[in-house]
């Protein structure tokens, strides 16, 4: 037997006479037996009757055909061959010019693109140089491509392009500054080839390298070994039998055809072919590399390098240095008669900046000031300078603040002071 709920869902269809014969019999039978459902049917019948009555006056009374049919001949005749259900005319009402729309659109786009192309800002033309020759002495041969307007050559200030090779003759020296900045100093009878700013090969001779830290490792290939570094100072000596590597600071990885290992500072290793046991030994790296100290960059060539190859590093703005000297020993302030400055001599022969020295006491009251001339730093024989306190010695200062303010009027090369001390009486 059908449930009341099932019957209820069929009541509307019963009123609308839309039940199938079987459904009709089942519903009628249920209604005869169930008073509740019969009552519901009457309720729904009343609603339906009311709806029919309400809409009655608005019902369409006349046949619309005549009114529409008389307008049809005015319209375009629909004489089209019909083949199949999904047949559809391609474009029955298309105007003749529509066919040209794609071509015209393409033409307009082209007309817009041409001025944009010519107005587009050009990227600054790169010189293609990866470095500059910053020192050149004696006969140096260069083989390679020219860069920009400069001829490929081994003269001072020549630009270095990828793939160039350089060979120093007897008694000649060369210094190459590459992007990074990485500096290479070539001893006499040396041949190197610069593949790019982080890859080079040394065929023969002796090379001193100051490698800047970079994202890519720096690789030096020699006939017998490969040296890989990230940022360090080292030397490579290549002859026909072996490659000798000396490390001053940092860390390098070296390998020959059968083994690889790492070299620590102040160590030297001779790499030979086929030797799996390469044992480094301690050396005084500074004395090994003493030959390189005489190769100092030419200031103008270095300026060219910083402007054309390393523009970013030229933006460095060094500040002043301040040293504090405690003058009190066992609660007694010692009178100060002189000040001493020590620094690490650099590789530049000229172009140093001078320094203004301001001396203040513990409450930052200036006691005196003086100047250190730029020529002091260009003299490579000295690494120290003395300033005598003018007039009477300084007494009861407690702490001396010594400020070193760079004065760039004479040059851009700053000096890194390692120590400042005072002479107490």
């Amino acid at each position: 037997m059908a449930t009341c709920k099932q019957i209820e869902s069929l009541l509307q269809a019963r009123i609308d006479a839309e039940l199938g014969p079987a459904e009709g019999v089942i519903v009628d039978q249920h209604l005869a037996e169930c008073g509740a459902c019969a009552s519901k049917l009457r309720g729904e019948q009343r609603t339906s009757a009311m709806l029919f009555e309400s809409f009655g006056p608005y019902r369409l009374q006349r046949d619309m055909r005549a009114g529409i049919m008389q307008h049809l001949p005015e319209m375009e005749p629909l004489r089209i061959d019909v083949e199949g259900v999904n047949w559809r005319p391609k474009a029955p009402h298309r105007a003749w010019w529509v066919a040209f729309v794609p071509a015209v659109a393409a033409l307009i786009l082209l007309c817009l693109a041409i001025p944009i192309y010519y107005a587009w800002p050009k990227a600054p033309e790169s010189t293609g140089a990866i470095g500059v020759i910053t020192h050149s002495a004696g006969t140096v041969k260069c083989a390679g491509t020219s860069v920009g307007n400069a001829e490929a050559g081994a003269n001072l200030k020549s630009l270095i392009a990828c793939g160039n090779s350089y060979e120093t003759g007897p008694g000649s020296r060369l210094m190459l500054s590459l992007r990074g900045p990485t500096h290479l100093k070539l001893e006499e009878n040396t041949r190197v080839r610069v593949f790019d700013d982080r890859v080079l090969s040394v065929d023969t001779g002796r090379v001193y390298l100051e490698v800047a830290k970079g994202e890519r490792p720096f690789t030096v290939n020699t006939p017998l070994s490969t040296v890989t570094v990230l940022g360090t100072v080292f030397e490579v000596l290549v002859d026909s039998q072996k490659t000798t590597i000396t490390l001053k600071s940092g860390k390098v990885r070296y390998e020959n055809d059968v083994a690889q290992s790492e070299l620590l500072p102040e160590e030297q290793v001779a790499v030979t072919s086929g030797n799996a046991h390469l044992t480094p030994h301690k050396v005084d790296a500074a004395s090994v590399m003493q030959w390189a100290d005489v190769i100092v960059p030419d200031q103008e060539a270095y300026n060219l390098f910083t402007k054309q190859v390393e523009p970013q590093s030229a933006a460095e703005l060094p500040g002043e240095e301040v040293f504090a000297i405690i003058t009190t020993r066992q609660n007694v302030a010692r009178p100060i008669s002189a000040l001493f400055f020590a620094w690490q001599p650099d590789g530049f022969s000229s172009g140093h900046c001078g320094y203004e020295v301001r001396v203040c006491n513990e409450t930052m009251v200036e006691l005196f000031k003086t100047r250190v001339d730029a020529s002091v730093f260009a003299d490579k024989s000295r690494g120290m300078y003395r300033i005598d306190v003018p007039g009477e010695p300084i007494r009861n200062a407690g702490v001396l603040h010594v400020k070193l303010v760079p004065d760039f009027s004479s040059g851009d090369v700053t000096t890194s002071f390692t120590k400042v001390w005072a002479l107490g009486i």
Partner: protein
Amino acid sequence: MQDDAQLVFRCLEGDTEAYGDLIRRYQGAVYATAFYYGGRYGAAEDIAQEAFMAAYRSLPWLKEAEKFGPWLKSITCRTAANWLRRHQRRAMVETPLPSRRPVSIEDAGEGPRGNLERNERFERVQTAIDTLPERYRLPVILRYLQELSYDEITAFTGESRDEIRGILQRAGRQLRDSLSDLDTSEEGETTWRPVSR
């Protein structure tokens, strides 16, 4: 009797009589749809006529001839929306139905009181239908305005017969609930008229 697809093909071959048969078949549904949108402004017949002419012009674009009914429904809806947009100002100013209803000879005898009651009742029915879910409204109008059978509603809306049966069942129950307070037992001359087929 030819089915819709056959009539459509005959139309496309230039037989306007076939289009007459399609009009006869669908005029109730198109009129009811037009009434649903523009009936308040007495525009149902205008909209229906416009819809049939628009459909005739667009017939070459009909993709599936056997789905002529749902296609005609969408054209009717679009035509009604266009009509309302075109006549928005007029529609806002003019008094909406039921007073826009065409007055016939039979109505004249009832007097103003009968008219007023009938108008109030129709307003209530319209409001009750407006509260139904949107999907229920058109089938209800098709059923109660033009007395379309479930098959005719199915052919026009494109929904299945079972869906239409369910929609009308649920809509009927909701309408009964919202119109239960209207007294329908009162005796009087009814305004119901048979549909012309």
